[in-house]
């Protein structure tokens, strides 16, 4: 597609979405009712397939469509958090029955989701999961423990990676399920984080159950499907800064959206800070007068350039994909790049704050937001796969460097692993 074609499409799409919004948008409509309308119109998730609430539009046009929503102040479908990973995974690997059961309520926001991947014994080495699912002839029975599970305390449903075969090599013995989080066999205990928030949890399973029809794809496909979920998570990393901001406009639908952000979206309220808040750097430098310090100016310029260039790099990767290059491990490159931006931003905020960087909450700069940045950024290089893991992926899958010698081949039963507590 040439630049000119893309431009023409964008104009057409903007016009179409603006017309539809003008005819239908009503701030006094109920939030769920409005989102159902959006879903039926295809404008809620226009880059999704036509068969599933979308319009098959290239994802490159979504920014333009979002801008049309913002212009009129229209609320979109629920798009924040793990729900989008669930949707992407179901779209790619789910059966039609699973898609029709789950997708709509993901988008209306009626259902909240979490991702049960990491365990106390296996984080980076996700394929080492020891939470087990055993089939009793009728349903799957789950026992074990997950950890760092964001949003589990609000979740209705979860994506679960569990071991179904202990004799197969470790990557082949995993299966992928959707599990009902509201059942008695699941115990969720929040974990407090270094930034004071408690958005992730420990999750314990004691004979929790999963109906047979909630297995995704086939037994043993778990690893392959988990890769889809992770690829989406990594690709989304550069969009984190958009998460979880409430509008202050009057109207019923905004009231309901504010209530949603305060409850089920609450775990994500510090996510903008974890990306480093580059947007706050200039205002803060001006306010504090540090803008006149030549050393600070160098560091600020480095950060702003890095942040700008990272966006262009992400844009180049998206453009290459739209032109037919298959989606690959470049999500890892973007994720690593956003860690660099977040860490640089945290350092610059410290430089600007000076001694005030020691203070938090209402004594700290910006009512504690700066302290929250400094204490949230370390999550960026861990969550969704650490920086080291991203470097392994880039080196092995993009540059073709050889893998490490393996210590974990053969039946999983015999692979050395952490003691279970």
């Amino acid at each position, binding site marked *: 597609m040439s630049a000119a074609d893309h431009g023409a499409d964008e104009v057409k799409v903007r016009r179409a979405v603006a017309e539809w919004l003008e005819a239908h948008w009503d701030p006094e409509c109920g939030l769920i009712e409005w989102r159902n309308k959006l879903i039926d119109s295809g404008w809620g998730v226009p880059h999704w397939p036509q068969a599933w609430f979308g319009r098959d539009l290239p994802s490159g046009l979504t920014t333009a469509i979002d801008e049309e929503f913002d212009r009129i102040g229209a609320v979109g479908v629920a798009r924040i958090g793990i729900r989008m990973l669930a949707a992407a995974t179901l779209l790619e690997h789910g059966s039609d029955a699973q898609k029709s059961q789950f997708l709509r309520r993901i988008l209306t926001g009626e259902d909240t989701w979490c991702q049960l991947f990491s365990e106390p014994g296996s984080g980076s080495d996700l394929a080492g999961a020891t939470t087990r699912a055993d089939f009793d002839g009728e349903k799957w029975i789950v026992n074990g423990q997950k950890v760092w599970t964001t949003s589990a305390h609000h979740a209705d449903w979860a994506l679960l990676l569990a071991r179904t075969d202990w004799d197969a090599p470790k990557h082949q013995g995993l299966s992928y399920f959707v599990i009902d989080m509201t059942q008695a066999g699941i115990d969720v205990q929040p974990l407090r984080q270094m930034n004071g928030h408690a958005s992730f949890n420990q999750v314990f399973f004691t004979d929790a159950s999963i109906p047979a029809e909630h297995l995704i794809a086939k037994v043993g496909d778990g690893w392959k499907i988990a890769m889809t979920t992770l690829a989406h998570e990594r690709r989304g990393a550069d969009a984190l800064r958009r998460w979880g901001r409430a509008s202050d406009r009057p109207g019923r639908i905004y009231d309901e959206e504010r209530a949603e952000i305060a409850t089920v979206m609450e775990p994500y309220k510090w996510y903008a800070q974890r990306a480093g808040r580059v947007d706050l750097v200039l205002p803060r430098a001006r306010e504090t007068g540090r803008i006149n310090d030549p050393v600070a*100016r160098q560091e600020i310029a480095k950060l702003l*350039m890095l942040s700008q260039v*990272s966006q262009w*790099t992400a844009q180049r990767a998206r453009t290459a994909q739209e032109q037919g290059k298959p989606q690959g491990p470049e999500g890892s490159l973007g994720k690593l790049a956003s860690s660099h931006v977040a860490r640089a931003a945290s350092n610059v905020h410290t430089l600007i704050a000076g001694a005030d960087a020691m203070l938090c909450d209402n004594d700290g700069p910006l009512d504690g937001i700066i302290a929250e940045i400094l204490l949230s950024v370390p999550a960026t290089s861990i969550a969704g796969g650490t920086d080291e893991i991203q470097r*392994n992926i880039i080196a092995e899958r993009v540059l*073709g*460097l050889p*893998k*490490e010698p393996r210590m974990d081949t053969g039946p999983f039963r015999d692979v050395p692993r952490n003691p279970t507590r």
Partner: protein
Amino acid sequence: MHFSFTEEQSQFRDAIRRFLRDKAPISEARRLMETGSGCDPEVWREACEDLGLAGIHIPERYGGLGAGYVELCIALEEMGRSLFCAPFFSSSVLAASAILNSASEKYKQELLPEIASGRCIATLAVVEEHGSWDDPDIRLTARKDRDNYRLDGTKNYVTDGALADTVIVVGRSPAADNAEGLSLYLVLGDSTGLTRRPLNVVDPTRKQAELQFSNVQATLIGTLGSGSTSLSHTIDQAAVALANEMVGGCQILLDSAVEYAKLRMQFGRVIGSFQAVKHKCADMLVDLEHAKSAAYYAAAAVAENDPDLAAVAALAKATVSDAYMRIAADCIQIHGGIGFTWDNDTHLWFKRAKSSEVLLGSPSHYRERYMQFVEAGL
């Protein structure tokens, strides 16, 4: 377009890459860097005749190919990759852009076709002993003398300064102490009173000279006093060009590091399987991709007359210079002892990276410049 190349642009790149692979392998760079001129006139003539190389972005009415700045930058990336030893950057980028931006129609018609054909090698002389690219630091004087001008002063770090047939000199009217006093003058390389001293340079694949002007006859080629704005525009464009040239070097160094890491064995395994090496390569790739993003975006910004060009150029020059130096240093590191030898080619690009880092202004200079645009509400 800012984020991808067209099919034609990719073909253009392939044509240049093929030419350079055949005519300018790295062994040629090694040969030419030991010569005074640093250029093979025969290969230069061929490049100009077969590919129209010297006139890529010069409009057709002045004898050039009339292609855009993006194409110019594609060619530069390929030259940076092969360390093509030729006066391209001096003549087609610096001098031709200065003429396009500031010369009167008469001089465009007179000078550009000669540059576009490659018959005339030109260069631009801006900086003086202090090495600063800022206008106020330019002291060389241009005194009116009947129909002509007389130049007195010194220019330093003039790329291909000893080789050039024609030198475009930035000079100041004696009375004017401010930016308005700057103009562009044309001087012939063999003029009386002009002493050219080739400099001993860190990067011998790009020659430089010091030029001393003592009552040298010169011709004003634009409007008197209009040199300042057009000069900073020319330097912004050149910074973008240089950034794209540097990207070519970044790519070949990463390729060479990765290739070596896949071959070299230690402790019973190839060194590319050690994470310390593997992770360095991954970081080099992130740097390379960012460098490309910055350089390509900036090339498109020149082509499209982006009003924010000065800021984008500053971003590109600073970002790519830093990336090139890091990649060059890491490439040597990954090669170990062999990387520090004269026989290994890595140092040739390392030297180009070092000299490009400060040519046209250092990364910190460009970061400060960028901040000024940011503050003004970029």
